[in-house]
Every structure is written in C-alpha cells, then in structure tokens.
C-alpha cells in the first residue's frame, strides 16, 4: 500500500488533527474520524475501462433543484445527470460549484470521456451526499445503502467518488 508517508508532496499533513479539533470546538464535542483497521477490498474492473459504465458519487451536497437538501441526515440524494442541481453544503464555498458544477460534480466531464471512448458510458443517476455529516453512523445507515443500491440498479462497473 502506498502509505501516506510516501506522498512526499502532501501539503495537508496535520490537517486531520486540525480539522478534528475545529469540529469538536464548533460543531460536535467528541467528534472523531470513523476509523477502519483494514482497507475495503478492491474489486477489479470486469470490463475494459473503455466499456465500463461509470457512476458518479460525490460529497458536494448536490440535489435536484426544488428538492430538499440532505443536510446532516446522512441521506443520499439521487441526482439525474440531466437535472438542474443546487449545492447545499456548509463546508465549502458553493458559489464556485454553482458557477461550474464540474469542479465537484463532473457529469459533463464524464460524458465527454464517454463520447471519446475513454469510458463506456455514464450512469444516468448520480448520487450526492453532504460531506459534512459528523455522525458517521448516519452515512453508514442511510447514505451508503442508498448509494450502493443506486450503483447496482444501474449496473455500474466503476463508481467514481469525488470529494468536495
């Protein structure tokens, strides 16, 4: 495994502790990162990338315009890739994403890659959660099952998770 210490250009060292302390002070006393002892297993691609259906998952807090945001519920929003979207997220400046959703919700980018034959196609429904859910169990109970179901229902070969 490529350990964090091998990433010599990592300018974010120390941020995990800084962010944890900030969240404890301002949002949730006792916040702790949800830690795992072992990595999730890899599931190798079963088809060439050029034939793969790619599903988009992101933590931008995107939701179809006119629908309620997911907030800190841990729920996942199902977002049609042709739908108008709104970004609701307290942890980053959503004005940039509102100006150009591709910075955190790369639907058009993936569609161009499909048109070029780099990937097979793009799943018609993306999944977005609001990445600032501080009680990790909420994501595990709500967002994760919904995300997995959405990817499976669309026969996604490769899910791309984009953090905001």
């Amino acid at each position, binding site marked *: *495994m490529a*350990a964090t210490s091998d990433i010599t250009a990592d300018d*974010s*060292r120390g941020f*995990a502790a800084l962010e944890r302390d900030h969240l404890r002070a301002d949002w949730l006393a006792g916040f702790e990162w949800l830690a*795992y002892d072992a990595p999730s297993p890899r599931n190798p691609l079963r088809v060439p990338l050029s034939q793969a259906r790619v599903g988009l998952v992101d933590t931008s807090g995107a939701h179809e315009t006119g629908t309620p945001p997911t907030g800190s519920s841990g729920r996942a929003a199902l977002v049609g890739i042709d739908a108008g979207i709104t970004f609701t997220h307290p942890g980053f400046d959503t004005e940039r994403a509102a100006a*150009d959703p591709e*910075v*955190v919700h790369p639907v058009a980018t993936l569609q161009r890659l499909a048109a070029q034959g780099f990937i097979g196609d793009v799943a018609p429904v993306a999944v977005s959660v609001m990445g600032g859910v501080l009680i990790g169990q909420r994501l595990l109970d709500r967002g994760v099952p919904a995300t997995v179901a959405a990817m499976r229902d669309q026969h996604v070969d490769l899910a791309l998770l984009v953090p905001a």
Partner: protein
Amino acid sequence: MSITQVPEITAIIKPSLACFVAMPFGLTLGDVGDAAMHEQIVRAVLHEAEREHPAGSIVPLPFRWERDDLRARQLRKEAL
C-alpha cells in the same frame, strides 16, 4: 475509485483505492471553467482504476493548485 485532497484522512478511512490531488476544497477537479483540467484529473483517476494497486493504496497524482494560496489557507482553516 476515490479522489482525496487530504491523504491523512483517507488513510484513516481506508477506501479500496484513492488518488490524491492537491486541490482546494470545492475545486477538487480544478478551477471554474477549466474544463481541460477537469478532464485531465478525471482521466488520470480513472486510469488508475485499471492498474493493480493493493487495496488501500493512495496514489499521488501530479495535480496541484497553483493559482493562488486558497488551498493553503483552507488547510490552515483560514478560508472556506
């Protein structure tokens, strides 16, 4: 296949495979309007999905924010 802007946090959670890009929060794939960069990053990330990385690998990619000090300020909690 995940992207990460903070390898330390990713190393705690341990997804199956992640690619590190030193980009600001909210501009993960590049600047507003920079479609070429968005595509370069997504291409590079998806390409790594075809390679035989061990589970838990965090692969550094050569993408760094150089336009201004936004990322640095974010990492000091001085900017959103």
